[in-house]
């Protein structure tokens, strides 16, 4: 990496280390909150992608790739599989394609937990958005890298 693009600063670096888990948690919060209140997979995905982009700015391309572990396009793939797969459970119970299915889980301490196919769809969107944004960001970073 040439010095020209080295933006390392102690403040940003330390800040990013502290912020990263918080941002990821916040993105998950947005994702789960999204069904009845403002939020959802799309905005949650943007926040998570921003967190990883922050890592990229604070450290370098390789560090950001390492915490993602997989190619961002594969993340898009997993997201699409989940989103498309969310249409299928309705068929198994004999309802129209893509009809929302709801299941309630009774947990001992937390009370009842509502799970649904829209949630699976939203998680798919979440992963898809992270993957798409990071594909763009990483491609640009890669171009600068070489």
């Amino acid at each position, binding site marked *: 990496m040439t010095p020209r693009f080295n933006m390392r600063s102690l403040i940003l670096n330390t800040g990013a280390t502290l912020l990263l888990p918080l941002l990821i948690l916040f993105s998950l919060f947005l994702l789960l909150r999204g069904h009845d209140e403002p939020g959802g997979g799309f905005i949650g995905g943007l926040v998570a992608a921003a967190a990883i982009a922050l890592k990229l700015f604070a450290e370098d391309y390789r560090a950001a790739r390492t915490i993602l572990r997989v190619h961002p396009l*594969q993340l898009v793939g*997993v997201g699409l*599989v989940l*989103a*498309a*797969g969310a249409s299928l459970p309705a068929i198994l119970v004999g309802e*129209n394609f893509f009809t*929302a299915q709801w299941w309630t889980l009774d947990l001992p301490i937390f009370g009842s937990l509502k799970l649904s196919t829209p949630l699976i769809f939203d998680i798919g969107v979440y992963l898809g958005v992270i993957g798409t944004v990071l594909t763009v960001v990483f491609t640009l970073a890669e171009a600068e890298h070489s």
Partner: protein
Amino acid sequence: MDLTLLVALPVILPLLFGAVSLVMLNNHNVQRWLGAIGTASILIAACALLWQCREQGILVLEVGSWPAPFGIVLVADLLAAIMVLLAAITGFATALYSLKTVRKRFERFGYYPLLHLLLAGVNGAFLTGDIFNLYVWFEVLLVASFALLIQGGERAQMEGAIKYVTLNLLSSALFLTAIGLLYGLVGSLNMADIAQRLTQVEDQGMVTVVAMLFLIAFSIKAAAFPLFFWLPASYHTPQVAVSAIFAGLLTKVGVYALYRVFTLIFNAEVEFTHNILLWMAVLTMLTGVLGAAAQFEVRRILSFHIISQIGYMMLGLALYTPLALIGGVFYIMHHIIVKANLFLVAGLIYRLRGSFELKRLGGLYKDHPGLAVLFLIPALSLAGVPPLSGFFAKFILIKAGVEVHAWWAVGIALLVGLLTLYSMIKIWNEAFWKAVPEPAPAIPAPGRNGLLYWITGSLAAMTIAIGIFAEPIYQLAQQAAAQLLNPQLYINAVLGADSL
């Protein structure tokens, strides 16, 4: 199995296969298998869908159980089912052809996921019963096609892509504007519901304005006169497999959209709207074929012929008689298979000789007589030589023109047929018949092309079959046209018989 699920399968299958092959981005073998199996499964689903459509009439799926007109519906009438089947055939042929021809580099950049996405977009556009959803599917297929078009990143590709992207985005903007105005007029996005409510709109002048906006938007996408030049600028630049699926399917989505909205929604002022369509059809035919006459590169010639053929399909819609619509539907069926096949044959020529330029080709008949036959069948069919599929397609259209005394249109359709024959003979003479030019261009090392011959051979066999079994195909087109001419069938299927 629930019948209505069948309507969703042609959309959801490519999406699922595309998503899985995106996950398997690094494993080329799995991607190839998914490409072949995925498109094969769509083909099976499409056959089943067409079969059920003939048996049961129009199939409607209310996605997510949200009732029409509030939710999005997927509707398969015969025209949509036929289009889905044609898309599936082209998709399957292209996927198999890609196994041999697509370079590793492009596979790594997601060639197969994009191919699946393209098919999902095309099928979605054919099946949706919601006008805004139609716009979304158009965008899906355009995004996939943009990416496929520029894979390789050569200068010519970029030049073509800029024209392609700009004009298609312009068309999308017009399309969206038209949807907005239409929604303002009737307050609904469900096409059946719109069709019903439009009759009660007082300001019929505004309806015609909206109809014209749709006409411009879709005719850009169909590459009709006058905004067609993005097509010959771009279609000869990507890899052959991509050219073939573009040539076979993409403009036909525009034609399908024209057929859909100008039979279902805008059918009140036929005198005005369809007269404009008629002129556009005639000029499209003429400019396309004249453009082809000036070209000396195989794929460019074929690209211009797509335009002139689009004119014939629009002619069927413009004349708007039962026979003309039958002719139009028949023409689409014939054209998609023939056109995709011609591009695939052009790809074989390239593999054997390393060039698309007529000047540098020659002697193919002597060296590869089998390929010569494979070229002649779709080429003569395109020109309308009996007993191939193109003859019947043109015959029905011209007969329909004669019946309504549209002499100008008939005369030009005949002339264009003749000029098409001239173009095809030009390719034949230059590439196949004349001796190898001096100095002999370097011939690429012979590869194994058995599979490619089988694919083009099967498509050629289909062309012959459409010609020989013209009667059952004609009946199918007749049933599809009858549904188009009686939009109440579509409306009742979507909204229930007791609507209004």
